[in-house]
């Protein structure tokens, strides 16, 4: 079996994120790192491979992004992926989620994975949707926010989803696309040997044409969703501080304040 893990290079967690007002795209000029959620997806793939519950022949990290995104792939293989694929093409720049998902699905089609894993969200765009778009194009079933994966034997998985109201247990047939939450596991430390050897593992750089991507469906101009503006969230009003001098009086003041707002 083959597991493909979708990974993304994002601004480092320590970098203050901002939108470039001239392009409407995220300013990615600062320090970058592998999307932390994706490290959980790689760890999930490694655990499936190492547990032996599924006969996993290889784990392949896949990304779409500029040249610098190669570092995210090096990190992915240092965490255990066997090889990686870098979809890089100027024509892809500025693609929206639908176009990005389409482009990635074309790369995945060629790989024919049994399972596609990814982090439930990227630390920059935070759309949560790329897995669903990829699944739609591949015509695979899809699960989101998964925090536990068990192999049910053969080509069936049992997954636990973290929902707002509790947990769902869902059975899913392979091939499938699963996005994982950070509660699924604790990603391992890469060893120094793995870091030093990361550049020696195979990395295929593919273009849009290599992957059979229709150029009319990707890139900023061809994306159906267009960014038109952004604004700061409204400022919160300053709160009112009640000094506790006489407790009975303080309680009266709090009750009156809540009462005024029909909160009690």
């Amino acid at each position, binding site marked *: 079996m083959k597991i493909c893990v979708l990974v993304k290079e994002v601004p480092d967690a320590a970098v203050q994120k901002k939108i470039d007002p001239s392009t409407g795209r995220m300013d990615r000029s600062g*320090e970058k790192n592998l999307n932390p959620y994706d490290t959980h997806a790689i760890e999930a793939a490694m655990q499936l491979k190492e547990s032996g519950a599924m006969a996993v022949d290889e784990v392949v990290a896949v990304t779409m992004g500029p040249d610098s995104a190669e*570092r995210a792939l*090096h*990190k992915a293989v*240092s965490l255990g992926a066997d090889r990686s694929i870098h979809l890089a093409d100027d024509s892809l720049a500025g693609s929206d989620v639908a176009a990005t998902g389409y482009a990635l699905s074309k790369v995945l089609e060629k790989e024919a994975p049994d399972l596609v894993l990814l982090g439930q969200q990227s630390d920059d765009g935070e759309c949560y949707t790329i897995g669903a778009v990829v699944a739609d194009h591949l015509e695979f079933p899809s699960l989101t926010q998964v925090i536990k994966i068990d192999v049910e034997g053969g080509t069936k998985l049992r997954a636990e989803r973290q929902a707002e109201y509790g947990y769902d247990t869902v059975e899913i047939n392979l091939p499938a696309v699963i996005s994982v939450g950070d509660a699924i596991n604790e990603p391992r*430390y*890469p*060893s*120094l*040997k793995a*870091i*030093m050897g*990361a*550049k020696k593992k195979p990395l295929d750089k593919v273009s849009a044409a290599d992957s059979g991507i229709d150029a009319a469906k990707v890139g900023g101009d061809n994306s159906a969703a267009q960014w038109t503006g952004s604004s700061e969230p409204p400022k919160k009003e300053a709160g009112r501080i009640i000094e506790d001098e006489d407790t009975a009086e303080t309680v009266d003041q709090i009750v009156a304040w809540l009462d005024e707002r029909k909160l009690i």
Partner: protein
Amino acid sequence: MSIEFLSDEQREIGELARRFADEQVAPQAARWDRDHELPRETLTALGELGLMGVCVPPELGGSGADFVSYTLVLEQISRADAGLGTALAVHTGAGTMPIVVHGSEEQRQRLVPPLAQGHEIASFALTEAGSGSDAGAMLSRVEEQGGELLLSGTKQWVSNGSQAHNFTVFALDPAAAMKPSAFVARRGAAGMTLLGEAEKLGQHSSSTADIGFDATPVERLGEPGDGMKIALSTLDGGRIGIAAQATGIAQAALDLAVGYAKERVAFGRPIGGFGAIQQKLAEMQTEIEAARALTLRAARLKDAGLSHTIEGAQAKLFASRVARHWTGEAIQILGGYGYTKDFPAERYFRDAKITEIYEGTSEIQRLVIARGLLGEIARED
């Protein structure tokens, strides 16, 4: 970190060490300090990741990274616990590297792999009660008896002493007209005794033991009479490691002080809003960056195979002073809280002082630097 100039691998190694330090070391450092303990499991975990042999060649079981990577690791680990930083620096820089550099091929193949992988711990035994900076005044000596080399004497303040399996020991050698030579002793050898642990100001998690040798069988490391050469070249690299350690301790103090300055409110505003605190923190950060830059410069020279004696001495002289001075100022910023064990500022302060003393005191570093500057006239008989 001046990460702009690091390679991808160096950045990733620094990042790995940072994560390990934050997750596995920092939360336990106060307890290790209080209990005077460094759990073996932590060293084993470091070994499994390849962090016990960062700059040891891969054919000897090491990770094969460069010396710059090694200093990045030491800085990060020391930021979380300076005692663990000492254990790591002595194990790799002082304990393992002399065998890598000066050992015979047979010794390298036999002794280095278990050390590089953290299965065994290494130490370095040079200092004696009456011989510190003047290492030549040592009294320990070897005797040859029936084809065996037997070492007798007492070594003091042996870092990692109570945990080590492998000791690089220096002693006067009749085969070299009683000049010092280097030897390797193995834990458990006949006549070897752990005489006790030193009670120290700080770095409580690091073992500092006195070790007695009584006709202990040892093997020779390098040529007879090369003891001082081996010791001094080991310290040339070791100093860069201590500079990295001092930088890490100072960085920990800065991170703590900045966090406190943002949170602690006095006279109606966070104390970071006051000029007195801002001035201190700005200067502190600048000097730490300078210490780091000097350290990386010396490490790069070493990686390039160039002379780094003066540069290593400068890095250690400066970084250790930065650590000693600014850990004290961090306590000042935290005020009364800084003086208590509720915050780690006092631990950083206690841990920092030794960086001005071990692997060559600051006075010796100045001597090394002055001799480079002035040549023969700085040497006197």
